[in-house]
């Protein structure tokens, strides 16, 4: 299926360049950095989910011996609403970000930062927090969609007017925004249907669950400049957002990204960074701040709880005649749930004449939602892919055939308006059908589920620089943090383009002053977009190498060809002449004589990321006496365009599926009636562990993306999208129980089985 199969390095799986440091413990993660004279910052967090701040008195904390600084909201300028800052996959409102990292006027969730201190030791800082005096006027918490949208609901933001309605409302609301996408005529569509499936599906608040907690070290110099070391998916985003929260010119801040222990979208924004800078400025000491796991759960990340109502009309042949989708999505304390992307992806796997999709972005007293792997897409995919499965069952049709009947392909216009270039959904469905997994026999209480999914993938801005060393090796510099093996893929693309061994390329992630601008590592964009910058830079290096060879040979550069890592005179120039090819190493060694060191850099706004489609096959076994579901076999089939580092693509497919499985079966935020999370630990927030999972099989389909020299599409996010419905569909197949409310934990499934 691949356009070209003669690559030397692309598609191989060499050892990762960061591997040795990680397995030996030498790698420096966020909390590992230290600075001379460093002290420790801690955050005081709101003990109530909703309230007005009446007073904050920091003085008693400052009197604790060993405390060097204390701050609260008043230490930051009250940022005006600024729209459109790049923050990965969704625009950010600076006023909201500023008020999320440090509360002003109101606290909006249990765990909302209200003050911070810096002290000589973490213990003294903890002690000092107890001395900060805060008085609140407690307000009734708004903890779910119904409470938030009820008439006379307590308002989180008294000035929030619903956006996206035809007529601008005059009353404030907890509904931040409404979105509608439609085509054709629903009534006509439903009148052509032989069956109608109508169901409401819900998903809980869930966390990205990165293993590394947020951590930052900040230092302020006497000249007014600051340095930040932190674990982030985007150092330039940290620079820009932190500067705005601080009211500083961003040129004063340098951000160095550490190794990162997982992000999944949750590290595309800021939490501790401006607090650490402010504490460092006030104390005159470098300040380290590290979140506890409890802080991470209570005040970072999560993704939205949601409710999706689906009405699906289908004719007997299994063709969708109409689809009506209504999504309500919890944003947390500030607007900006992934409602929009959830709506845009809801029906994108299918070629539909008549549909209506409506989404609601609703604020509640929970932590502000952050991006999580294909933000929003799993929510609506769970609903739509469940409904399609129900339709297939009702009509007695094969679940893969029913999807093939309706599948989007090249030329299909997506519900959000884009006309698809070559895409690989049909190929993943065909590969699923042909896979031995699909026809393997099942035992009693076992079942098999199918689901498909889509994610746009992002392009955005990237830069790369390549420096050739005098021994013929190359250093590749970008500011795209490596969360999924991107250094290896950058090195592979460089090696392939230049024609040198992979081992001769050293790819590094640099700080905001050493590397050109890169947007976040997010949106499954890095191998595609930063990869294109790297390839562009490598091509410029080749131009330079040809010039150097031409100079040595006294030819024109256009008479020199670059093949297999060597300069060759073209056929005309070599005719009758005895000219030996010059290798990259030879040209690098003689660079001093031909114009000096060889290097190149490139930057771009990468267009045409190419959508990512995938199909998954899930087998489960349900214990009918306990309601426990075991995943016994799972196959992920996905279009990667072209897999650069095959094993890392497989790893992304497996990791995405695992997060989807966890979300389907056990993961959820459990709140008490006051809005305090009850399970803020890895013990009780039940992410799957290795013993809960089979080895996840992968099939990489390659329908090349014409907008990347090697055909790359993003692969990181799509694999989480189908997994929730694949599990639910498998459970229904096993024990005839249609579960519409995640997670499908054992008590819930047992209850369903005993009432059926």
């Amino acid at each position, binding site marked *: 299926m691949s356009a070209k199969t003669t690559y030397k390095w692309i598609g191989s799986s060499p050892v990762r360049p960061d591997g040795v440091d990680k397995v030996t413990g030498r790698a420096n993660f966020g909390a590992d950095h230290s600075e001379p004279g460093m002290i420790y910052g801690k955050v005081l967090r709101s003990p109530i989910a909703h309230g007005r701040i009446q007073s904050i008195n920091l003085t008693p904390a400052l009197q604790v011996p060993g405390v060097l600084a204390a701050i609260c909201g008043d230490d930051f300028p009250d940022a005006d609403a600024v729209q459109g800052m790049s923050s990965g996959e969704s625009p950010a409102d600076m006023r909201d970000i500023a008020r999320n990292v440090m509360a002003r006027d109101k606290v909006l969730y249990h765990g909302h930062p209200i003050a911070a201190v810096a002290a000589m030791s973490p*213990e003294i800082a903890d002690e000092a927090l107890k001395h900060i005096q805060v008085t609140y006027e407690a307000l009734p918490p708004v903890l779910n969609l119904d409470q938030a949208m009820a008439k006379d609901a307590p308002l989180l933001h008294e000035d929030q007017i619903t956006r996206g309605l035809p007529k601008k409302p005059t009353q404030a609301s907890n509904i931040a925004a409404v979105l509608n996408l439609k085509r054709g005529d629903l009534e006509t569509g439903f009148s052509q249907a032989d069956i109608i499936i109508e169901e409401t599906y819900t998903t809980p608040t869930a966390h990205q669950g990165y293993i590394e907690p947020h951590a930052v070290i900040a230092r302020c110099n006497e000249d007014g400049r600051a340095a930040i070391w932190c674990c982030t998916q985007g150092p330039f985003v940290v620079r820009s957002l932190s500067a705005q929260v601080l009211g500083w010119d961003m040129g004063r801040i340098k951000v160095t990204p550490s190794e990162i222990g997982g992000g999944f979208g949750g590290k595309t924004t800021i939490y501790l960074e401006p607090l650490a800078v402010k504490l460092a400025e006030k104390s005159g000491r470098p300040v380290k701040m590290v979140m506890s796991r409890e802080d991470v759960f209570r005040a970072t990340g999560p993704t939205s709880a949601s409710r999706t109502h689906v009405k699906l009309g289908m004719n007997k042949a299994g063709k969708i005649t109409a689809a009506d989708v209504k999504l309500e999505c919890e944003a947390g304390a500030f607007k900006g749930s992934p409602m929009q992307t959830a709506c845009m992806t809801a029906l994108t796997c299918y070629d539909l004449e008549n549909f209506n999709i409506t989404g609601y972005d609703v604020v509640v007293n929970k932590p502000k939602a952050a991006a999580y792997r294909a933000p929003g897409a799993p929510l609506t995919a769970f609903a739509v892919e469940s409904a399609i499965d129900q339709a297939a069952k009702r009509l007695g049709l094969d679940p893969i055939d029913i999807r093939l009947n309706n599948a989007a392909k090249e030329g299909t216009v997506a519900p959000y308006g884009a006309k698809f270039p070559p895409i690989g959904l049909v190929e993943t469905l065909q590969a699923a059908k042909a896979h031995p997994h699909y026809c393997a026999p099942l035992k009693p209480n076992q079942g098999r589920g199918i689901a498909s999914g889509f994610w746009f993938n992002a392009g955005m801005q990237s830069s790369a620089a390549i420096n050739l060393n005098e021994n013929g090796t190359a250093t590749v510099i970008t500011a795209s943090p490596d969360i999924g093996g991107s250094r290896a893929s950058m090195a592979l693309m460089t090696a392939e383009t230049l024609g040198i061994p992979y081992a001769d390329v050293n790819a590094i992630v640099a700080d905001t002053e050493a590397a050109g601008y890169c947007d976040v590592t997010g949106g499954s964009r890095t191998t595609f977009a930063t990869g294109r910058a790297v390839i562009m830079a490598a091509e410029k290096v080749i131009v330079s190498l040809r010039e150097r060879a031409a100079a040595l040979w006294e030819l024109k550069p256009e008479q020199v060809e670059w093949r297999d890592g060597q300069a060759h005179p073209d056929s005309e120039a070599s005719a009758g002449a005895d000219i030996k090819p010059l290798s990259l190493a030879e040209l690098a060694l003689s660079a001093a004589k031909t114009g000096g060191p060889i290097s190149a850099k490139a930057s771009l706004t990468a267009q045409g990321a190419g959508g990512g489609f995938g199909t998954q096959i899930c087998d489960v076994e349900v214990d009918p*006496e*306990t309601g*426990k579901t075991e995943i016994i076999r799972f196959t992920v089939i996905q279009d990667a365009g072209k897999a650069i580092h095959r094993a890392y693509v497989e790893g992304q497919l497996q990791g995405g599926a695992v997060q989807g499985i966890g979300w389907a*079966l*056990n993961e959820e935020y*459990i709140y008490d009636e006051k809005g305090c999370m*009850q*399970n803020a630990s*890895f*013990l*009780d927030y*039940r992410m*799957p*562990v*290795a*013993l*809960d999972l089979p080895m996840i099989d992968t099939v990489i389909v390659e329908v090349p993306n014409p907008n990347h020299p090697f055909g790359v599409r993003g692969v990181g996010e799509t694999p989480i999208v189908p997994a929730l419905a694949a599990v639910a569909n498998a459970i229904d197949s096993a024990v005839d129980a249609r579960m519409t409310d995640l997670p499908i*934990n*054992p*008590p819930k499934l*047992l*209850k369903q089985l005993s009432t059926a």
Partner: protein
Amino acid sequence: MPSASTYSRPSSLDEALTFIQSTSGKALKILAGGTDLLIQMRAGLYPDTALLDIKNIPETMSITIEPNQVRIGAAAAASEICANIQLRQLYPGLVEGIEYIGSTQIQSRATFGGNLCNASPAADGVPALIAAGGTCLIVGPEGRRINPISTICTGPGETALGQGEFIAEFILPIPKPGSADAYLRFTPRNEMDIAVVGVAANLSVDADGTCTRAQVVIGAIAPTALVASDVAACLVDQPLTPKIIDKAGEIASQLGSPLTDKRGTSEYRHQIAGVLTKRAIKIAAERAKKAH
């Protein structure tokens, strides 16, 4: 980080007693594996507490199979217990219980003594330990005493141990021919989780397969592990047919007063107590038949 006002790691029971006496009147915690205690200290629960580390005392660290009894040191590590093939043959369910606790790293520290005295109703090590019907040697300022294991836990986090007392070792009988035990627990995840319910069954069967003795202990459905005498009574003098076992499960599902919390509902815990009781009895009965 955790800190203790005083720390002692004696090499004999007498030396331990001397330390205890020296701390009289002050708060004292016993450090066995520390897998619960260190977390509690880190959470600031015991700011000014003396620590007695019992991991250097021969009696508390050894596992001895004697002709008439088994002695298990209260501070012997789970990994040592699990690696003891003789013990696993005599008490497979007891070993299964402690084997469930924690990861490989935790296994190299966790102990029966700590698991019992932490007094969590959901402790995996406790039901089979109680079902084994043994005693424990308690050492304290007043001297030594021997008590049934079943009397130690009195409520969540509460024990019958007095100020300065600790358990040095557990003494279990050598099971009679035709006897065996089994432990099962239910968790939504397969590892790194806390039992929603745990059930230990310890049975003797005669050559015909009739149950001659039974003890069933259920964890996480009451403030302490619950000795389910009614379940045992329903089994004794009966052939262990599916019908009898179903009846035992039915009785088990009525017992206790389980909580509804983030780890499970009361209704669900009742149901699972019934299911696991049936399954544990079946496994123990199979093992007992082979133990003639």
